């Protein structure tokens, strides 16, 4: 083996030498762990329940907002604080527009039903955070993120913005209701 030396000294001659068995074992174990780390992602992609794949498209922000307004007009059942509440049927495409500083509309979804949730922004980047579940997605102007979602429990949820979008960023809170099979929203979320 080469002469004993520190990291501040130039190694003499050939330093491309075999490692000690203990080191080889650690590198092997680390390599195997890295393969496990890597394998988890494709595995979860095919077998797991949560993936950020979605149906992803480019979109003109105003076109997306217009579509959202059509969607609201089609399914509105009420309003809260001036924001329309909409109840789309299971299996449908639902639209949520983020804009400084609100989320529109308030979606009322059914527990266990599947929807394609389209997220986009009218202006700047926003961050979709479903509270208190803690589901997070980036909402980018010019892009339609169509996530296939299936609510797992009824509740009265909040959507908060977690991407800085201007001075009113911390006032940007939306609402999302999930009703159970018999049509009631149990107190799974906040007020």
């Amino acid at each position: 083996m080469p002469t004993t030396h520190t990291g501040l000294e130039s190694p003499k001659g050939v330093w491309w030498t075999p490692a000690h068995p203990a080191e080889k074992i650690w590198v092997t174990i680390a390599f195997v762990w890295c393969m496990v780390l890597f394998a988890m992602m494709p595995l979860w992609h095919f077998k797991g329940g949560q993936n950020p794949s979605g149906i992803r498209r480019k979109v003109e922000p105003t076109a997306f907002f217009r579509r959202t307004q059509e969607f609201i007009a089609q399914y509105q059942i009420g309003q809260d604080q001036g924001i329309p509440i909409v109840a789309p049927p299971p299996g449908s495409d639902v639209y949520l527009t983020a804009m400084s500083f609100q989320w529109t509309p308030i979606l009322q979804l059914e527990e266990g039903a599947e929807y394609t949730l389209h997220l986009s922004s009218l202006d700047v980047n926003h961050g979709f955070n479903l509270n208190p579940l803690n589901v997070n997605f980036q909402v980018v102007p010019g892009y339609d993120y169509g996530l296939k979602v299936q609510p797992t429990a009824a509740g009265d949820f909040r959507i908060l913005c977690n991407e800085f979008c201007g001075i009113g960023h911390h006032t940007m809170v939306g609402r999302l209701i999930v009703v159970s099979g018999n049509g009631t929203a149990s107190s799974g979320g906040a007020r």
Partner: protein
Amino acid sequence: MTTTDFRTCGSTGLKVHGPAEALIKANAVVSVVALLIGAVGAVLLVLTRWQAVHLLSAPWYYRILGVHGMSMLIFFIIFFEMAVLYFASTVVINARQVMPKLGWASFGLMVIGAVMVEVMMWTGKADVLFTSYVPLRADPLFYLGVILFAVGALIVTSMFFANLVVAKREKRYQGSVPLVTFGAVAAAIIAIITLLHGAAIYIPTFLWSLGLMEVDAQIYRLIWWGLGHSSQQINVAAMVAIWYMLGALTVGAVVVNEKISRLAFVLYILFISMASAHHLLVDPGLGPTWKIVNTSYFMYMAVLASMIHGFTVPAGMELGQRLRGFTSGLFEWLRKAPWGDPGFSSLVFSVVVFGFVGGITGVTIGTEQINIIVHNTLRVPGHFHATVVSGTAMAFMGATYYLIPLIFRKRVAFWGLAKIQPYLFALGMLIFTMSMTFAGSFGVPRRHWDITFSQAPFGIEFSPAVDLLLGFVALGGLLAATGAFIFVAIAVKSVFFGDPLGEITHGTAMVGVPAGLTHPPVHSSNVDELNAELHQPGRGWRLGPAPGTVVLVGVFLLAFVVYFFVNWKVLSFVWKIG
């Protein structure tokens, strides 16, 4: 270039080139000024997110957040890294600095750029945070300042390579460059990758801010993070190089195997930068295959590299100690190590907190799907304060305790405080990062002024645990900031008002001089025999020449496995999403 431009260091025997030394000093000093600005910002920020205090108004919170990010992640760290690059390509290999005047011009460019950026931010003309995501718009001078800074840094990085070419030609060293310099090469290469992406994004964005072109929001994020995250990987490579250096200086750490350690740096060079994808895992513009390949640093090869250093750095230290007689049991080498040497304690805390807290959380939250429960929550800054602050900054502080006597040739001021500063800083950061990470797991957002949502149309109530955790974030942050202010005070006093250091006497403790210099960890003349003996196979349960390290990495791996799979379990509880 004459021989009179060099002085010979009394402690290390290395030849120090005067013009190189001057550039090292200038960049180190400015880096500490930036650290001070960033640390002041840190105090203001934690006292704002601690809702009971809520110090800053909303506009000032977001403003100072940007100042803190820029000052720490760009100015403090990169100026210090310029010093490291100058040091590693001259002092460490007894070489001269090529074209020092160009170094000064670049320094000037970087300072001008930094001042422009700071002024724009402080005067409210760049309330766009460190990431400046388009379409948030800042004053054109903000972007121009960043560009000037980046150009200066690119020139210095190129001069680093020029130094190495000239040093080889002038046969300033035999064989290969030392491992510490090789680590700096890795850092420099990643810096070039980083700065090329920086140019690619800031030039168009500057033009956009003048109304001259369009910039797509998703493309901005893609290219910006090619600068933003890669710059943190410069920090990783530089930090590891400093680990090898401090190990050598404090405990005579030996290189266990050059091939393996250099392989790890090469894996960084090839694969670490693509993990910029960590920030784009829940973005609409990129697909799953791209996300999985990139976020995994290409099948986790760069994580393999970190796990290699995670072994070779402590193993080298353990071996360095064992070869000097600390052979009893598994951990005498650690127990009897120079814990009163702030260079050593900084080194250890840097390795441990970076590895256990920073590394494990980082790989986990950078997993494509787990990121769904993490993105833009406090888990993100919780993670990166454990890596870049408790890891890189801590290592840089440790190196400074040797920089002051060796390059500035002054005694370290406030020596009693200096010895405990790393403990204070590490403890503060540990409380800070763990509390922040835990708060993030409740979904608490990052970059957010008010989680009571007092001005929002719909109320949200977080668990009362969150208020407690944010209180601890403040406590940890204030403790760490105190450690940072102490460090700044020590650096300023030592450099500008400190006692000049003459000859270092060996064998007696000296005030303001770390133990690695007064009691240098010299190896005996038969060290090669001793080393060969330790490497003998068939040593039974002793697991090779560094058994203590084997135990430590075993604990690390266990923690990693548990943390990783717990997160998958937590992910499985949320909505089905695809």
